[in-house]
């Protein structure tokens, strides 16, 4: 069964394509891409003018919460959220209950993903057993079971020695070590960015240096071991400085930034809702100079990927005192509108660069399929409606938890449709496309 996506603007930077192209899908694969492809018996899908056809977006940092925290999210609800947000694949963090530190848990997640049959799911395994920072997890077994990277996300790897060992060991399999960068002693029991807002609200603060120390540690150890090191959810300007320096020196370091860190600052702690627990995440919303640095890094190429750090928490868990609430917000269904509005329409980057950040580079870092609309590649396709007026409504999100600070936001640009393995899994009713 062939389908020809005709007439859209195709942005496929890995193949150097940005222009009106046709894309031919044959079953679950891309068959061809080019100008004025012959119909040749395929059903024709006319892509409306102004819509953009991209290789499927890959969110390399989500928490699907299953197994063990199904009241927050499941693989099924999380991947439904992913396809509604334009993501054809997600990489899920191992801080489930139990921790994904062995092949059984990995297999369980993959089985749940197969049941849901929505976005592709790439599990990320734990660095240490139980993510406790003592003994290494069975990394070969995790790799064999399908894990594409390792991390103790939620926390940094406990010691420099263990991180070094993990890097050396993971080097065997060519997988990167992803690090939640933070010096826990400097963080203490902080709940916000250390600055004027935290001081005024009486919240314990952690400085940007707390994150940058972890970034510096990882870069030094990556240089020592040669293993690829990926900085998760980078938020501080000092971290970006360290990453730039590391890249200049040839260290194999990459980094991701979450949409909330390039959109919001710590002023959101006070306005419009003071002490809104949906503005509490780790790393925290930082001051304007940090937010602006993230934007600059996205614009100049220092930042490799946009990843959501999608972190669902139940309403009851968030409806408590600020310092008692868990860290994190959901992000899968807000990432594309925020990116189009704040990055592309703001004039900071063009669409090919956005596709690098959301598709090409995540695929490259995790070494997973995707990132290009090449013949023979899986037919994972995200179609954007860049000028669609989008209104974020927390209650309407597909994910199980609705913890977002963007409720009621009106943004320019959204997802028109999401195709995974040739199957159309999401069509936006507000965008006129019938894929």
């Amino acid at each position, binding site marked *: 069964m062939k389908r020809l996506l005709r007439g859209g603007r195709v942005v496929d930077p890995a193949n150097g394509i940005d222009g009106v192209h046709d894309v031919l899908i044959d079953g679950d694969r891309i068959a061809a891409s080019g100008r004025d492809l012959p119909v040749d018996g395929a059903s024709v899908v006319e892509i409306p003018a102004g819509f953009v056809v991209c290789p499927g977006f890959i969110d390399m940092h989500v928490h699907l919460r299953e197994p063990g925290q199904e009241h927050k999210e499941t693989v099924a609800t999380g991947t439904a959220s992913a396809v509604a947000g334009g993501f054809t694949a997600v990489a899920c963090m191992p801080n489930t209950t139990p921790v994904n530190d062995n092949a059984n848990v990995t297999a369980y997640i993959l089985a749940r993903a197969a049941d849901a049959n929505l976005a592709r799911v790439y599990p990320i395994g734990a660095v240490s057993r139980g993510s406790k920072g003592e003994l290494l997890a069975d990394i070969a077994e995790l790799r064999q079971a399908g894990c594409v990277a390792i991390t103790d996300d939620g926390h940094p790897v406990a010691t420099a020695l263990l991180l070094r060992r993990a890097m050396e060991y993971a080097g065997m399999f060519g997988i990167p070590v992803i690090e939640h960068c933070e010096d826990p002693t400097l963080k203490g029991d902080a709940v916000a960015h*250390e*600055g*004027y807002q*935290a*001081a*005024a*609200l*009486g*919240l*314990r*603060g952690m*400085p940007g240096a707390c994150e940058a120390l972890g970034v510096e540690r990882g870069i030094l150890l990556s240089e020592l071991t040669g293993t690829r090191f990926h900085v998760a959810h980078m938020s501080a300007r000092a971290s970006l400085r360290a990453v730039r320096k590391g890249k200049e020196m040839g260290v194999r370091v990459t980094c991701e930034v979450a949409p909330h860190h390039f959109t919001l600052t710590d002023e959101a702690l006070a306005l419009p*809702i*003071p*002490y809104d627990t949906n503005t509490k995440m780790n790393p925290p919303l930082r001051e304007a100079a940090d937010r602006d640095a993230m934007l600059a890094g996205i614009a100049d190429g220092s930042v490799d990927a946009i990843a959501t750090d999608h972190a669902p928490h139940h309403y*009851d868990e968030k*409806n*408590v*005192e*600020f*310092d*008692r609430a868990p860290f994190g917000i959901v992000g899968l269904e807000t990432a594309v509108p925020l990116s189009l509005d704040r990055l592309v329409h703001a004039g900071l980057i063009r669409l090919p660069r956005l596709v690098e950040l959301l598709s090409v580079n995540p695929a490259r870092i995790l070494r997973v399929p995707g990132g290009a609309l090449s013949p023979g590649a899986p037919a994972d396709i995200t179609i954007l409606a860049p000028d669609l007026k989008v209104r974020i409504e927390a209650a309407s999100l597909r994910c199980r938890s609705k913890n977002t600070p963007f409720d009621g936001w009106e943004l320019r640009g959204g997802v028109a449709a999401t195709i995974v393995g040739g199957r159309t899994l999401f069509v936006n009713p507000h965008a006129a496309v019938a894929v």
Partner: protein
Amino acid sequence: MSAPAQTQDPTRTDAPPPVTALRRKDLLGIAELTTDEIALILDTAEAMKEVGERPIKKVPALRGKTVVNLFFEPSTRTRTSFEIAEKRLSADTLNIAVASSSVVKGETLADTALNLEAMHPDMIVLRHSSSGACHLLARICRSAIVNAGDGMHEHPTQALLDAFTIREHKKRLAGLKVAIVGDLLHSRVLRSNIHLLTKMGSDVWVCGPPTLIPADIGRFGVRATSDVDEAVADADVIMLLRIQLERMEGAFFPSLREYFAVFGMTEARLRRARPDAMIMHPGPMNRGVEIASEVADGPYSVILEQVANGVAVRMAVLYLLAGGVEHEEAA
């Protein structure tokens, strides 16, 4: 106090009607108060102070109103002060302390508040160890929420009683040099006082070891220094903040002995201030740590006046939140 000019000539655009009530549901902090509202509370407190000096210390202003004092942190001074204020206004009062509450059974703050709400109190006076706890309650409760201290955020009635005490002595707040010395980082009293005094035109200096000075303190409109002599020089008011023993464990300073040597308020240091300088402390005091006993008990000290004025100021706040003159006229 006069009634608001409700039938004001619409063509008159000069003077706004006099502020005679707090047109807000809650008192969460000083940060959101206008200078008019602060002045109204302080003026009203003067009348309330007079009530406390009568042989029969009771007025019917809050008769039939129910006030819940919900205290999640131990407090003697503030809770007692609120309770006396409520009783002098004829409110029905109810004290809930953390040890006897259902919180120990794992109930959330929101559920505790909603259960209290179901019994239709008019006001909840809340003391809580989490900054922003009062904001949470204010969002979900119909009752007026009065902040009696939330975490490291604000303690608005303390700042109001401090300002009231200063005004009694100095007849003004504008232009006074006020030096606040101690643990600035963890102090809700500091934050409320900074907001109030800077709004009212005082020249506020804050002083403590750099480890205990909040980030970006300059944006609060105050001068910060770790040189206590500089802070105290020519000060009209010196306000000391409590130093907690456990801060040593956080390595904020090496020892109480060293703290006293570097920052403790002694008679020798006091000589750099103005001759009529006032010494204030929100309590409870650590004698020999932030303040020498000779200073605490000396002629400049107004520490017990602060306690006395706390009742009058809290009466004023409760009265004005309940509607002030407008409420009384309606009744």
